């Protein structure tokens, strides 16, 4: 009798574990399949143009800024935060950069530092501000978004609307080798910090349960400040390259960046609520998927406004499918 009983219990344990493994597999494998599916489908739709040599260089260029900002944002999303002001902050950094150079004759390296500082200030207000004032990060980042948008427009107007970036000075930002080196270095370093160091682990633990993390000796403020610092630096660096690639700055520069990041994360299986399941790998897969998708649809001749509609629908569907509801279950009323 006792032996039989033990067998039954083992089966139940096994069942639970199998269920969890299945869930993990869906989370881990599905994004891969999504990426492959996207590439195959669009390669057919574009008659192979998607994977042509010239277009692959384009793809690297297009995913460059999203990837940089994406790995930075991974830290913020992992701890359960978010930042909805990235686009305008990125645009503002470009204005600050070009303004310091054209109006105040400052050297380029000072401009780079100023651009990065601008983004750090913006992300820091969102992160530290929302934590210290006990406000939803979404609300704070909307405010910062509004401020950045306003400053970007004012700066842009004061410099005469469309600002053309002098390529003789900033052309080196378009060097593909430089971009590839920076991209690879960023991916390796951020993977190391995110998966292998105290900071990355702490961010994920705070995302899992902030109260528990605090009661276990983790200092949330420290982790939040560092996460937003990393994000700020990444947005600042991305701003410099984006400016050179576009060749001009308008009041709409940087627009849509934060939304692209969010879709990329969702497509890659990065949990929007943060926590232990967050992986840098997911960001990379997601960025590749969204880039191939946008690029492929454009080549296939789909109008840009429809691409945005497709992205929006995709986002809702994926978040609805993948959102982890275990935390919600405990507070749901009867």
């Amino acid at each position, binding site marked *: 009798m006792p032996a039989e009983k033990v067998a039954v219990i083992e089966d139940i344990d096994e069942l639970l574990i199998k269920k969890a493994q299945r869930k993990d597999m869906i989370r881990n494998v599905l994004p891969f399949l999504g990426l492959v599916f996207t590439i195959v489908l669009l390669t057919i739709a574009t008659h192979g143009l998607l994977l042509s040599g010239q277009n692959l260089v384009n793809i690297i260029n297009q995913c460059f800024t999203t990837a940089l900002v994406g790995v930075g944002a991974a830290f913020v999303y992992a701890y359960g935060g978010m930042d909805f002001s990235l686009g305008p902050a990125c645009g503002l950094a470009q204005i600050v950069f070009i303004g310091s150079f054209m109006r105040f004759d400052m050297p380029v390296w000072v401009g780079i530092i100023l651009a990065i500082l601008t983004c750090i200030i913006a992300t820091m207000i969102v992160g530290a501000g929302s934590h210290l004032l006990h406000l939803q990060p979404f609300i704070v980042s909307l405010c910062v978004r509004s401020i950045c948008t306003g400053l970007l427009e004012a700066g842009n107007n004061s410099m005469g609307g469309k600002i053309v970036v002098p390529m003789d000075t900033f052309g080196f930002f378009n060097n593909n080798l430089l971009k590839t080196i920076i991209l690879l270095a960023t991916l390796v370093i951020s993977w190391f910090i995110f998966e292998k160091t105290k900071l990355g682990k702490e961010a994920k633990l705070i995302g899992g*349960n902030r109260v528990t993390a605090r009661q276990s000796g983790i200092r949330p403020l420290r982790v939040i400040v560092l996460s937003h610092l990393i994000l700020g630096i990444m947005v600042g660096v991305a701003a410099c390259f984006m400016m050179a690639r576009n060749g001009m700055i308008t009041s709409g520069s940087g627009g849509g960046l934060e939304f692209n990041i969010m879709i990329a994360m969702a497509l890659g299986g990065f949990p929007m609520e943060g926590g232990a399941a967050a992986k840098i790998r997911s960001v990379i897969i997601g960025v590749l998927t969204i880039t191939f998708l946008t690029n492929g649809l454009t080549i296939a001749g789909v109008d840009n406004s429809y691409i945005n509609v497709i992205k929006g629908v995709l986002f809702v569907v994926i978040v609805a499918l993948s959102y982890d509801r275990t935390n919600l279950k405990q507070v749901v009323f*009867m």
Partner: protein
Amino acid sequence: MPKNMVDAQNHGVGMIVQEQGTIGNISVASNVFTGRLEEFSKFGFINMKAVTKRAQEILNEIGAGDINAASLTATLNFEDRKIVEIARVMVADPDILIVDETTTALAMKGRKILYNLIERFRANNKAVIFISHDLDELMSVCSIVTVLRDGRIIQSLEGDKITQNNMRKLMVGRELSEHYFREDYECTYGDEVVLDGKQITYGSFTNVDLQLHKGEILGLCGLSDCGMHELGKVLFGIEKPITGRVTLPQLDKDAEVISPSFAVKHGMGYLSKDRDRESVILNASILENIEMPSLNRLAGLLGYISSNSEKKLAQEQIDILKIKCRDSKQRLTELSGGNKQKVVFSKWLGCKSDILILDCATRGIDVGVKAAIYQLLEEMKAEGKSIVLISEELPEMIGMCDRMLVMKDGAITAEFRRSAELTEADIIKYMIGSVESNAS
């Protein structure tokens, strides 16, 4: 088989759940009449006055007149919110009532209300299914006790067969040959004070003094709203006291516990009464939970933490505490309450804490794990570690503590030292006692 909870309710089955089952940001009266507000509506308008009046009548009827039906539910404490749920069940007037581990959340007042309700059901020839692990309670309340273990019905007991010993045997599945509580009746601890609270005021308590010694198990007992749970949080630096301070005299006479991170850094650990929300991360793995307070120790150059050192730490703890799991990657959502509690203990054992503050360490846990925890506490005491044990369960307090501080209405009303003669009645007097008895 009922399709869902509403279906069950419509067919005369009511339930009081273990978790919080009230909505915080609406009034008590609305909670009492959840799903029944239709009865008070005319032309689509709800007569809230009538709802409040009727709710107050029901609250008065069950002996909870001190709860104001018009007040916002979120302003009530956990216990009163449970009582509101009991009132809701009264309104539904079911034929079968299921009470799931509700009394763990209730102190004397709430328990009395619930027992009266159960008595009334019995008198009206209705049935109550009472789920609990509190053996005393089961003995006094139930007419039939069915013991489950590992998801199977083991045996049902009736009449005078219902004894603590019989139930315990069936629950564990073997004779409890090893001891349960401490067997010695000596009050033993070192001279050094390791945690010193002076004149602490916070929330519902004022000017509390408390000293914890090396190798001591210090009990804090009282009714659930006496302030002992908050005191535990202040001792660990989670809440900042309004006046007074908590220091670690062994470190430095001015080493004040200002935050949980300071406390953890200097060898303290804390187990919350609300384990699932405050002491573990349900969606994270056993490994991630165990390593949480040890991250600083594990981190090397640039904060690098090697996978091997993590795994070693987790596996050690799983072996020591015999946590039932597949491997250290298993998530906490897939563990039983007892095993989750073991994970919390291993968090603090893993980072070698010397001072532990345990708020309801054995709440909602089966007898087997309870016995393991009591044994663990004894071993820790023998190693010279110091423990503050916060609990409402007096047998546990009398069974484990060297000293016991009784709290009532935000003040310490009595101190008891460990002895064989100490009884629950001695302590209860000071937990709920009148002013005269406090004077002694």
